[in-house]
């Protein structure tokens, strides 16, 4: 609380990023954990909540007559553009937020104060929901060749590795210790994935180098160098891409050129290419050792991508959780540093885990029936990796989390997601669909790589499809299931009644009460009915031609006489907008704003 210089500012304007003339006026509150903007307009009292730990940067810009602009960029790619009447207030909010969004100590992180209504026993059970040992036993481990080694129990051999590691049965502790001394940060080769189907014991391993092995000293081993760039290149690339996403009304060429020069999709392709290479090798029965310089960035990326390709289990909801827990959390991806949870070295920040999630998304785009989970899950996991609301991604490795007593003091994301899984299930997924079987063989032709609008422009609602096929399918799938169950129970009843000789009346009485949901579907999925900005280039192309076009004055849609004509009056409530449905309980999902885009396309006055 001591960091809040000003708990409340009135008459703040929240500007619309796409059309800045549209703005909402309200009060901005700063609390210990959130900034909250409450729109003051009567009627639609909308609220926008932003978690401090999601704030990536706060920039105060030069004051103008209309106020002092404050730009808040979030790690989930939300951008809030406030205008605060008094410069001093803006200054205070700026300084407060800068401090609040940059915790110095772990104890300040939101997960340690986040107290949902869950009792202690349940909280503890939740942490056991994802169990890595169970995953290894699913792979058939331990077995004759691989055993659980106690060598790192006290994190003495490698302080960034988990306590429990699978190693070759023949490798005695002295061998492991010897190997660890030869590897950066003691990260000796340990098992990541064991292919049960493949009797040749195909294995994806991980380890850390610094330099690389001399081929002469490793017999029967083939070396393959995959060109994935380092964390600094990735950070800069994402930054450039985000700048393109932020452009106010870019032309198609601006956008494509910007996307190209950011290099982002090139890097995504490099990661996926490597994942495909590993997966193919393992599927052919060749064991693979993967490493980069430290073994917690690129190695984690490509091992987990390979796992998704190899094993349908990791394409299920539970499986993805296990995979992230295994390859990222347990093997010591440095979440605190990479995600900038605490004020620290900006050069350690890098969107490595974003790239993994994006690779999965790219695969989902190619194989829409192969994944049990949907895009919303990836986006939600992404948000929570950065939000610090749950304890899963706190610290840089298992040892740190143990010291922080994360499992005792915080909640686990996985069981939260599992509880809300209805939102994360892909209705097109069928376990027995041909796309769901075995090894995924994606194309890595350059045209397969798409820009991920759902994540990077997630909060620009006007850019997303206005109707959701997924929501529609989810409803009809649920209804189909319900009706089939109903039908079964009716059949049973009929059978019973028949025995009692009175079935026909009962049958009539039991007429299906089915259709209410489905018939209302069309209405539920009503269109977000807002015109867009169609005039930008029009105005640009005709600067003051003598007898040129006259441009309409801005129109107030509220003054349109016929209510049927004021498009945009259609409230967005009930609209399937996947991108905005954030399960972050304190996120802008609370914002019941009926329609932020209405009147967006008013002809701009020259």
């Amino acid at each position: 609380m001591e960091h809040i210089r000003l708990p409340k500012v009135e008459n703040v304007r929240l500007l619309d990023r796409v059309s800045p003339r549209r703005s909402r006026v309200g009060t901005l509150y700063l609390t210990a954990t959130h900034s909250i903007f409450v729109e003051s307009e009567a009627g639609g009292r909308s609220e926008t909540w932003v978690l401090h730990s999601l704030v990536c940067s706060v920039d105060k810009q030069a004051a103008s007559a209309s106020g002092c602009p404050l730009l808040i960029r979030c790690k989930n790619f939300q951008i809030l553009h406030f205008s605060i009447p008094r410069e001093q207030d803006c200054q205070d909010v700026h300084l407060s937020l800068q401090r609040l969004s940059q915790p110095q100590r772990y104890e300040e992180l939101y997960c340690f104060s986040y107290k949902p209504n869950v009792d202690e026993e349940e909280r503890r059970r939740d942490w056991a929901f994802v169990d890595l040992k169970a995953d290894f036993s699913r792979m058939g481990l331990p077995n004759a060749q691989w055993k659980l080694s106690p060598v790192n129990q006290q994190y003495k051999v490698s302080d960034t590795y988990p306590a429990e590691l699978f190693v070759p049965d023949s490798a005695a502790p002295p061998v492991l210790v010897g190997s660890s001394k030869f590897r950066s940060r003691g990260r000796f080769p340990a098992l990541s994935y064991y292919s049960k189907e493949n009797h040749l014991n195909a294995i994806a391993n991980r380890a850390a180098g610094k330099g690389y092995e001399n081929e002469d000293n490793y017999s029967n081993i083939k070396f393959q160098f995959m060109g994935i760039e380092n964390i600094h290149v990735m950070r800069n690339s994402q930054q450039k891409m985000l700048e393109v996403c932020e452009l106010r009304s870019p032309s198609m060429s601006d956008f494509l050129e910007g996307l190209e020069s950011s290099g982002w999709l090139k890097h995504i392709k490099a990661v996926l290419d490597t994942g495909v290479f590993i997966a193919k090798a393992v599927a052919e029965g060749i064991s693979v050792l993967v490493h980069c310089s430290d073994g917690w960035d690129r190695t984690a990326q490509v091992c987990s991508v390979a796992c998704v390709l190899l094993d349908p289990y990791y394409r299920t909801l539970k499986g993805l959780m296990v995979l992230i827990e295994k390859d990222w959390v347990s093997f010591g991806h440095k979440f605190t540093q990479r995600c900038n949870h605490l004020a620290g070295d900006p050069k350690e920040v890098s969107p490595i885990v974003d790239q993994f999630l994006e690779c999965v998304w790219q695969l989902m785009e190619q194989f829409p029936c192969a994944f049990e989970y949907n895009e919303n899950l990836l986006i939600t996991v992404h948000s929570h990796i950065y939000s610090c609301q749950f304890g899963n991604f706190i610290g840089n490795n298992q040892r740190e989390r143990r010291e922080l007593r994360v499992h005792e003091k915080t909640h686990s994301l996985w069981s939260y997601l599992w509880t809300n899984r209805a939102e994360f299930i892909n209705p097109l997924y069928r376990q027995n669909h041909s796309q769901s079987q075995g090894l995924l063989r994606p194309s890595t032709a350059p045209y397969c790589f798409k820009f991920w609008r759902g994540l990077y422009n997630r909060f620009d609602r006007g850019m997303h499809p206005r109707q959701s096929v997924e929501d529609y399918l989810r409803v009809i799938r649920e209804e189909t299931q319900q009706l089939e169950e109903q039908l079964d129970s009716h059949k049973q009843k009929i059978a019973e009644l028949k025995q009692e000789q009175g079935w026909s009346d009962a049958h009539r009485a039991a007429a299906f009460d089915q259709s209410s949901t489905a018939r209302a579907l069309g209405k539920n999925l009503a269109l977000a009915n807002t015109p867009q900005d169609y005039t930008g280039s029009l105005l640009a192309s005709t600067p003051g031609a003598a007898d040129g076009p006259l441009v309409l004055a801005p129109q107030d849609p509220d003054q349109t006489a016929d209510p049927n004509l004021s498009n945009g009056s259609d409230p967005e409530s009930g609209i399937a907008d996947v991108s905005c449905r954030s399960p972050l309980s304190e996120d802008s999902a609370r914002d019941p704003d009926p329609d932020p885009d209405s009147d967006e396309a008013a002809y701009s006055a020259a």
Partner: protein
Amino acid sequence: MEFSDHIKTANVEDVVLRQPLHPPSRGTLCITGHHLLFSDREEGSSRQILLLLRNIDAIEKRTPGSSGTITIKCKDLRVLQLDIPGMEQCLNIAHSIETLSCLDNVSEMYPFFYRPNDLSLREQWGLSTPEKHYTQIKELHKKWRLSSVNKTYSVCPSYPPVVIVPNSIDDETLKKVAKFRQGGRFPVLCYYHRKNGMVIMRSSQPLTGANKKRCKEDELLLQVVIEDSDKGFIIDTRSSQQVQQARMTGGGFESKSCYSRWKRLHKQMERGKALQESLIKLVEACGDESHNVDRWLSKLENSKWLSHVQTALSAAGLLVECVERDGHSALVHGYEGTDCTLLICTLAQLIMDPTCRTLEGFLALLDREWLQAGHPFQQRCAHSAYSHARLQQESPIFLLLLDCVWQLWRQFPLALGFSEALLLRLANEVYASDYGTFLCNNDQERCALEVKDRTHCLFQALLRLPERDYYSNPLYEPNELAIWPSVHPQSLQLWRGFFLRWTQQARHLEAVQEEIRSMVIEWHRVTQR
């Protein structure tokens, strides 16, 4: 000249066919007057491939040694390869394909020979005409009438015999207006907006020329359209510089001084050669998987195809804003009024009018706005992206329409009554077809060749079962609201189903559509029980 004169070798055995997504197969190749037929002779399979020669855009032949290879590039973007034993046979086949794939004589084309058993030539032809459209909209009758001024096609060769014009404008006036508009395309009604009584008209450019010629009748016609309102909008598909230049070659625009209550809005759209080259570049970029991502994005950008999509959708959005949101009537034209004009009028109707969004409504819209309205299909679609022939009048404006409609379908997947499969089918049919629908350049030419009596109608065929089911959108929910498209670059995507159609990726996406269809069928089955 008989077709057989062009066929020196009709049959070749032991040909190897290589095509995307299939293993190579060995079999017999036949050439007929209109088809290339390949019958698989592999054991246990009896695959046949029947390809309309008209579908072939370009061929390349190589004859190293005693055998030869022909690469066939189709207008549907498929690339096939035939390995033919014997150099002479290879050359003969190549020669036949080259000649027969681009016959100029329309009445020799396949639709005049296509006689399936289950179709009769006496069945109804087409779905909509201005007359039909007029009778369907009772609200129109007070202020608009049908005019037969063009019944002999003498006033405007590219218009249908009957058009919808203001009640108070007589045929003599129309004839004078026609003389003042390029190609005689005087302003006619194409859309009536029931919600507010506003209309969209389309025409070609006025022939004001360098001397700023005027035409009282033209001014009067436009004047009466907006009698009851304070203004109307003219959406010109050219830039303000272009319209000034157009005056030097006899064209022009409606000046403020002569058409005081009409406001002009300029929305420059590419057409003609520029659009054809855009398609060629895009298809070239899609064909090379060896590119890296940077090169791919650069080529995608450089093709400008998506920019054209963006421009077309925003021009249509602008038109809808004028009519639906601001409640004004609009006139649309560019130069000839047979290309971009039709494109944005069609898109605007899809955006505003729910009756155009059903399968039947959409096909009727195409019938009125493209076929009846005189889009010169024969000229525009003679060749596609692979042809080495010198470009003349080719331009993929109809393909651009289909792409824009696909973008709408992506953004409003429940709002359109037809499926992506329909758009793909139309993209094929417009270049090579069994049906007569897309033959010729206008109604007059179709009439002269008796197309309606001597060929079958595609639209009617698409509405028969089982096609009708296949081309319907299983998720369709009728919706009265306008479907405003987003034109942000992030919202527009490459139409993979078309441009990457012959890749594994497109197959996966087709599987998804099948999955969706079967889920909906299952749901219907259960709810109707």
